């Protein structure tokens, strides 16, 4: 059994579509400085560093070489990771795992993406991720989620109007989040008449490209009280890959999210997720994915989530506070997006989420990461252990 660990500081940039005013390293520094300030720390207090980006999405390789000096962590123990959209999730999972060894008192974890610097990211990182098997197809999150949404609608009876309801809810949440990128004032009509990308996916259903970074600082229990009186305890985490086909021709509705949640819930005695978890920050790269993800995390039965939107049960002050930050369709610095989820979940547990704070005490929050065609990281946070 490892050490008990807690997050003592979080930070993120104000996310934007373009940041020509900063390099990737300068962008990272913004998030790192905010996390350090939140933990009342200076960079000299950090003992171990883990960082990451989805390299094809901004085109820097061996990025740690360029970013470490700017963030003041030269000479410290640490490493860089990357794993498509899950990058920030594996950075976090690695951070938690290293923190739980008790070898270090303070760990800084951060991820970033400057998507304004690589227009063709998904040419290389999508279909081109494995040239032999998928190189001929223009694979991307758009095509991935078009296929998933097709399967979902085919099996559930969900309509395009239901998909639009999800997107409008996400926008309503994002408008209350000062860090979110897209705040559009959407209506059902606007979404349903938007440009069609790959049916049933319209432009507004997809996550944007974002320049942004996010960071957190995690400590073993013995060091926590030195830095904060509002720790957020990391109760559990699990990361896994899909065992099926590389080509997505496997069941398009399948994902590892359900499996990862089942493992974590079983270990922590969670039998009624909607009751036991009070806030959710789940990585939905397309608005349409939010429906299936709500089912896979155990909020409702398979192929029924769209009815919860029909009944107006999903929202910050409603029965199901799912993605109160506005989620990934509002903000997506892809490699950093899982840490944005984690930061937002921490703010909910602390009661520091300002205008998008879920009412009542948040004893538990769940944050997830999604990447590629089925990688998932599940991170369970608690107010007290």
């Amino acid at each position, binding site marked *: 059994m490892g050490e008990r660990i807690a997050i003592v500081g979080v930070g993120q940039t104000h996310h934007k579509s373009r940041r020509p005013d900063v390099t990737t390293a300068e962008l990272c520094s913004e998030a790192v400085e905010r996390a350090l300030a939140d933990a009342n720390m200076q960079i000299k207090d950090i003992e171990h560093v883990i960082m990451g980006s989805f390299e094809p999405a901004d085109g820097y390789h061996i990025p740690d070489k360029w970013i470490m000096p700017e963030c003041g962590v030269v000479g410290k123990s640490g490493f860089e990771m990357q794993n498509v959209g899950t990058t920030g999730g594996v950075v976090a999972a690695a951070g938690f795992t290293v923190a739980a060894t008790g070898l270090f008192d303070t760990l800084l974890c951060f991820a970033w993406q400057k998507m304004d610097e690589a227009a063709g990211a998904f040419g290389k990182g999508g279909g081109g991720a494995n040239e032999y098997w998928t190189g*001929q197809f223009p694979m991307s999150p758009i095509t991935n989620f078009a296929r998933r949404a097709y399967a979902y609608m085919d099996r559930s009876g969900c309509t395009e109007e239901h998909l639009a309801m999800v997107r409008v809810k996400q926008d309503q949440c994002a408008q209350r989040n000062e860090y979110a990128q897209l705040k559009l004032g959407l209506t059902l009509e606007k979404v349903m008449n938007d440009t069609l990308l790959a049916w049933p996916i319209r432009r507004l259903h997809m996550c944007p490209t974002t320049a942004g970074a996010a960071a957190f600082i995690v400590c073993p229990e013995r060091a926590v009280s030195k830095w904060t009186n509002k720790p957020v305890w990391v109760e559990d985490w699990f990361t896994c890959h899909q065992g099926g086909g590389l080509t997505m*021709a496997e069941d398009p509705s399948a994902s590892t999210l359900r499996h990862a949640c089942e493992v974590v819930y079983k270990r922590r005695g969670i039998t009624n997720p909607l009751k036991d978890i009070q806030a959710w920050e789940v990585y939905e790269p397309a608005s349409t994915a939010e429906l299936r993800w709500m089912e896979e995390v155990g909020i409702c039965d398979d192929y029924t989530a769209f009815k919860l939107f029909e009944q107006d049960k999903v929202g910050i002050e409603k029965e199901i506070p799912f993605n109160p930050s506005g989620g990934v369709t509002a903000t997506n610095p892809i490699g950093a997006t899982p840490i944005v989820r984690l930061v937002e979940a921490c703010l909910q547990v602390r009661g520091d989420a300002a205008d998008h704070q879920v009412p009542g005490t948040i004893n538990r929050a769940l944050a997830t990461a999604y990447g590629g065609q089925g990688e998932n990281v599940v991170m369970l946070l608690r107010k007290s252990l």
Partner: protein
Amino acid sequence: MSADEKKPEYIQFRYPRSYPYYHALGYQSKFAHGLKQRRILATKCPECGRCTIPPRVVCPMHHCKQEEWVDQGQRGRLISAFKIHFPMFNSRTGELTTWQNPIVAIELEGGARMDGWCEETDTDKLKTGMLLEAIWRPDEERQGRVDDILYWKPIPE
């Protein structure tokens, strides 16, 4: 900021790149040889009997060695279809490209699933479960690549 101090002008540079890669197929080479002979081969798990494409030495679910190769036939049923209505980056050229044909997921007669292009461009005519047949490149053009299968064509039952 005083009147004679200008806001800094930030600069970005464009870097197009193209590098060759040489990726080994290993155990999957048998699949590529099969394509040259107009055959679609999949590995079969001895434990659950499931056939998988891409073929693998080990079943991803049961972790046992998959030594049996099964010919998946020339036909399959449609699982899903979608058409791309906007230009997307082509991973082979790096250029924005438009595609007229839908991408379909197919469950083959042998049970394995794979992706392909559909010959029918009108997605309203595509229905889940419909029968599709492989249309191959001519003999002299096939190289063992997945796109040796040009299209999947809907056929009457």
